[in-house]
C-alpha cells in the first residue's frame, strides 16, 4: 500500500516537473529569440504569466462538445504518454508504467493528442482550423516515417522494444546510441524538427497565414489548457530522445536526494541542448510550404532512416 502511495506521489511529481520544465523552456526560447533579434524580450517566466492570464479569463466560448473536450483530451494524452517515459533511470521518485514493447506503444499514443486537437478543431467550423489540421496530418505523414525507421533501427540492433532495456544497454556498455548508431540519431533529430513545429516547419500554426490554424477558435482557459498540454509534450519528446540516444539520466541503483538532484540536472542539460536544435534551425529559416515540408522529410531523413536499419542489420 505504501508502495502505491509513493508511486502516485511520484506520478504527480513527474507531471509537475514536466509541465514546469516545458513551460520554462518555451519562455527561455522566447527570451533567446528576442536577444537574437536584438530585442530585450519578455522574462523567461512569460509563458507562466500568459497561462495565468488565459486561465483567469472571465468568459470562455466552446463550439460544441468536442470543442469543449479537445483541450482536456490533449492534456490527458500528454500525461498518459508521460507515464510511459522513464524520466530518471530506475529512480524511485519518478516511477513509470514500463513494459516490454512500450516503444511501439509510444509511437501510437504520441499522436493521440494531435487526434484530439483535430477533432476539436473540426467542430469549431473555422476554415483556418480545417486547413491547419489537414496540414498537420500531412506533415505528420512526412516526419513519422523517418522517425519510425530510426526507432526500428534501434529495435533491430538491440533486439528489444523496451525503452528501459535500451537505457540499460547504454548504461552497461557506456556508449550512447547516438554514437553506436549515428544514422538513427540523425534521422530522429531531423524528424524532431517537424515534431517541434518551429520554423521552417511551422506550417500548422502559421499565425500570419492561417490565423494560428487549429487553435484559432480556442481562447481563454481552452487555449491555456492546450498550452500546458503542449509544454508537457515538449518535455516528453525531449526526454524520450535523451533516454533513447543519450543514455538517459540518473543512476538506477542510487535513489538518494543528491543523486536524484544530480540526475535532474543532467537531464535538464541534455534535454535543453537537444531542444536548441530545432530552435536554432528555426532562427535561420523562413517557412516552408506544405509540400516542401513533406518533401524535406522524404529526402535526407528518410535516407538516413533506411541507412540506420541497414546499419543495424549488418551489425
Amino acid at each position: 500500500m505504501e508502495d502505491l502511495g509513493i508511486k502516485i506521489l511520484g506520478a504527480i511529481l513527474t507531471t509537475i516537473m514536466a509541465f514546469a520544465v516545458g513551460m520554462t523552456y518555451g519562455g527561455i526560447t522566447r527570451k533567446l529569440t528576442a536577444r537574437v533579434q536584438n530585442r530585450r524580450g519578455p522574462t523567461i517566466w512569460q509563458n507562466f504569466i500568459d497561462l495565468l492570464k488565459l486561465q483567469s479569463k472571465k468568459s470562455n466560448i466552446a463550439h460544441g462538445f468536442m470543442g469543449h473536450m479537445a483541450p482536456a483530451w490533449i492534456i490527458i494524452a500528454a500525461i498518459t504518454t508521460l507515464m510511459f517515459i522513464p524520466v530518471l533511470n530506475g529512480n524511485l521518485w519518478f516511477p513509470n508504467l514500463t513494459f516490454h514493447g512500450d516503444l511501439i506503444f509510444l509511437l501510437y499514443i504520441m499522436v493521440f493528442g494531435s487526434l484530439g486537437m483535430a477533432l476539436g478543431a473540426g467542430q469549431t467550423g473555422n476554415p483556418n482550423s480545417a486547413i491547419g489540421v489537414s496540414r498537420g496530418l500531412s506533415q505528420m505523414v512526412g516526419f513519422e516515417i523517418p522517425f519510425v525507421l530510426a526507432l526500428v533501427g534501434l529495435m533491430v540492433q538491440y533486439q528489444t522494444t523496451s525503452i528501459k532495456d535500451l537505457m540499460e544497454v547504454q548504461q552497461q556498455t557506456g556508449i550512447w546510441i547516438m554514437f553506436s548508431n549515428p544514422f538513427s540519431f540523425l534521422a530522429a533529430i531531423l524528424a524532431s524538427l517537424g515534431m517541434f513545429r518551429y520554423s521552417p516547419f511551422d506550417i500548422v500554426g502559421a499565425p500570419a497565414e492561417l490565423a494560428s490554424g487549429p487553435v484559432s477558435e480556442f481562447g481563454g482557459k481552452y487555449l491555456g489548457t492546450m498550452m500546458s498540454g503542449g509544454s508537457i509534450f515538449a518535455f516528453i519528446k525531449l526526454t524520450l530522445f535523451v533516454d533513447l540516444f543519450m543514455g538517459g539520466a540518473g543512476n538506477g541503483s542510487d535513489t538518494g536526494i543528491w543523486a536524484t538532484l544530480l540526475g535532474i540536472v543532467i537531464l535538464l542539460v541534455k534535454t535543453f541542448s537537444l531542444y536548441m536544435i530545432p530552435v536554432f534551425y528555426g532562427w535561420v529559416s523562413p517557412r516552408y510550404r506544405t509540400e516542401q515540408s513533406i518533401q524535406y522529410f522524404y529526402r535526407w531523413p528518410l535516407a538516413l532512416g533506411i541507412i540506420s536499419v541497414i546499419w543495424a542489420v549488418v551489425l
Partner: protein
Amino acid sequence: MSTNEKNSKTILEYISEWSRKHSLFVMAYGTGCGAIEIPSTMTSRYDAERFGIRGAATPRQADVLLITGYLATKTLKRVIRVYEQMQNPKYVIAFGSCTINGGMYYDSYNTINSLDRYIPVDVYINGCMPRPEAVISGFVKLQEEIAAGRCHKGEKYIENLEWYRANQKKIIKNWRMPDYNW
C-alpha cells in the same frame, strides 16, 4: 470586480489582475493608417514584447483591440464582429485624433467621428499619428488601469448593448449580422 465584505481585493483577484496586466495579446487588425506604427512598436527598436505584449492571430485569443486611426463605416461592421468575438475581459486602445473627433476626416461621408459611441474605449492615444513611444506609453497606461481594476468595459458593453446597437445600426444600414455575436 466582485468585492468581499471588507471591500478589498482577494488574493486570487490580485494574482489574476497582475497576470492580465503583464500579458496582453493584441489583435492584429489594422483599421487605418496607424497600423504602420505597429510593426516598429513590436520589432527590435521599440520591442513591445518586453511588457508582455504580443500579437494574437484571432479575436478568440486576443485581449486588446487596436483601432489604429480612422474607421470607415464599412470597416466598423467588421470591428464590431471582432470586438464581440473577443472574450472578457477585453480592452480597446484607440489611436490618433480620428477616433476621438474624426480628425482630418471630420466631414467625410464614410468615416465615423467618435469611436466610443460604437464600442467602449479604454485608452486613447493622441497624435496624428502617434509614434511608437506614444503607443507604448498608451499600453503602459492601460496596464496601470488594469492593475487598478478599472477596466470593465467589456461587461459595460453587454449591459448597455441596446444603446450601442442603436448607434451602430444608424451607421450600418444593411445590418445582416446576428444580434448577439459572442
